[in-house]
């Protein structure tokens, strides 16, 4: 019984992490058809922003939930103005340019922070469930992910901002004709996407030792989750994260973390082969 509970929790946790690390990328891809391969480095910067803020004496929750998204959002805004906006509509070129950015950010972080590991301690302590030790912080990550999905759905569905965003997403020309500047919508979308990356970095920072190359560990997974999910932001993210979370955690449970990761990657290949437009390109088409 305890084992089942632990196992369920682990699966939920791994789905939550996938949602968290992919959310920013999904927003940008779903809205703008832009793949930001510097996403992992945005997370890395969010992590550093959190750690620096905590060291400066700011409360750890404020640091990771507010400071990190803001800092990275602003960096994203600068990146969008300097690079991305020249490449709209050129999917592959955007990927290459952002890959270049990711290398540049990694290099810059090495120069600023050095190749040493830094970190903050986890603010929530663990507890025991039957014979098993559970990391309490996992609950926090699950809660953050759920809130994130609910908020994204509510904003896109319920607010005027969301309506404009969805309109631009479906037809940028039409939105422009109705008087909304796609340029501004894209700019704000990229800001939101970067801020979400910053949030992910901030929230995950206490779990790991942060190094400048940290982002590259996540980018592939985030990229795979978003592409496999397809164009719909919320449903796509949720469905692919669920599939991959289940697969990887099950195999991790059966035979270790490396096999779990390989299983995730193999599942991605099979999924993309069968559903080349992603899950929501086939099912739930046109939903959020």
């Amino acid at each position, binding site marked *: 019984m305890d084992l089942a509970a632990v196992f369920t929790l682990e699966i939920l946790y791994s789905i939550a992490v996938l949602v968290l690390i992919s959310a920013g990328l999904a927003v940008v891809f779903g809205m703008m*058809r832009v*793949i930001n391969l510097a996403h992992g480095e945005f997370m890395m910067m969010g992590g550093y922003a959190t750690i620096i803020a905590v060291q400066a004496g700011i409360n750890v929750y404020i640091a990771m939930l507010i400071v990190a998204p803001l800092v990275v959002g602003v960096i994203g805004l600068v990146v969008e103005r300097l*690079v991305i906006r*020249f*490449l709209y*509509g*050129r*999917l*592959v*070129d955007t*990927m*290459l*340019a952002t*890959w*270049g*950015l*990711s*290398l*540049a*950010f*990694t*290099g*810059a972080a*090495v*120069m600023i922070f050095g190749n040493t590991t830094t970190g903050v301690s986890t603010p929530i302590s663990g507890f025991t469930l039957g014979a098993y030790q559970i990391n309490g912080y996992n609950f926090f990550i699950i809660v953050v992910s759920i809130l994130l999905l609910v908020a994204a759905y509510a904003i896109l569905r319920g607010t005027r901002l969301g309506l404009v965003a969805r309109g631009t997403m479906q037809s940028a020309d039409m939105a422009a004709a109705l008087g909304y500047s796609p340029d501004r919508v894209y700019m704000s979308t990229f800001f939101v996407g970067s801020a979400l990356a910053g949030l992910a970095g901030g929230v995950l920072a206490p779990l790991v030792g942060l190094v400048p190359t940290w982002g*590259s560990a996540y*980018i*592939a997974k985030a*990229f*795979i989750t978003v*592409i496999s999910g397809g164009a719909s932001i919320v449903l796509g993210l949720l469905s692919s994260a669920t599939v991959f979370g289940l697969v990887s955690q099950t195999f991790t449970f059966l035979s270790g973390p*490396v096999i779990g*990761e*390989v299983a995730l*990657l*193999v599942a*991605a*290949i099979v999924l*993309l*082969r*069968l559903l*080349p437009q992603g899950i929501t390109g086939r099912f739930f088409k046109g939903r959020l």
Partner: protein
Amino acid sequence: MEAIRLRDAAWVVLAGIVLMFVAPLVLNYYTLTLLVIYGLLALSLGLIWGFGGILCFGQAAFYGLGAYAYAVSAANIGESTVPMLIAIAVPFVFAFLLGAMMFYGRLTDVYMGVITLVVTLIFFRFMNTTAGPEYQIGQARLGGYNGMPGYQTLNVPGDPSAYIYDSSLYYVSFVILLLVYVLVRLLLASPFGRIAVAIRENENRVELMGYDARFRKSVLFAIGGGIAGLAGALYASWAEIVTPGLFSLGQSAEIIIWCIVGGLGTLVGPVLGAAVLGYLKFALGQQTAVDNVLIMGLILVVVVLVLPRGVVPSLMSAFAGTSRRNRPNAARRGRRGRGRTDG
């Protein structure tokens, strides 16, 4: 048209031969050999991406596969001729199967990119775990994270004690590069190559003419894989150790950067891009003021923004003006693929 391009190719080979003898005056053989191997690797991606329009984010998979195939078979056989052939054959077959899976599934640009990237990652993760004694193929222990040293390096065919190393390895690699270049040029001049370019330009139209684009793309992809495997085998011989790092994300990124900077739609561009950037990385590695990853990243961003066709095609059209070589946007179209967002 094709005759003219083959004549250009002859000039390129001639220039290459001159360069082969001039370069050692400037740099040592050890570094030069690596640059030549990089050139060969870039050529493999330049072929499938620039001429086939196949965006492969994981060319490193075939490179690493070639290196490992060589190392494992050389450790078992103790002679380098057969392992060299195996190192070409294994990535060739693997690339063909992978390509067939993707092309028959009608996957296009980003999705293809993701799959090839994922395959590279799988190799990377898997090879990192092969430290235990159970991962042994014949005499060869894969060695996990630490890699696999101690296999027979390149030797004169038939004589395992006559090692080819240092200056001779450099000349052998360079001659192989030139040979592969000529073969690829001939391939592109053949009906197969011309249809490959036609597929890049408009796949539907080629299929309506009755050609099987999926099969042809798979073959082209496999040829690229085989060339990358050959580069991997030469690398294995040069470095005398193969490590999972061959499959890393960074390695994949570098190959793409070489091709972009050098220029797609040409064969010389990627090779030069690889040699120049490879040297630049080496030179930057000598100093500590600026991180070399930072520079590589910035170069990639700037080239994508300012010279979307790459350095060599831009230079060519600048010099040639409106002459015969002015093929508008061919390179860029190949790079952009046929994504639905193209506009």
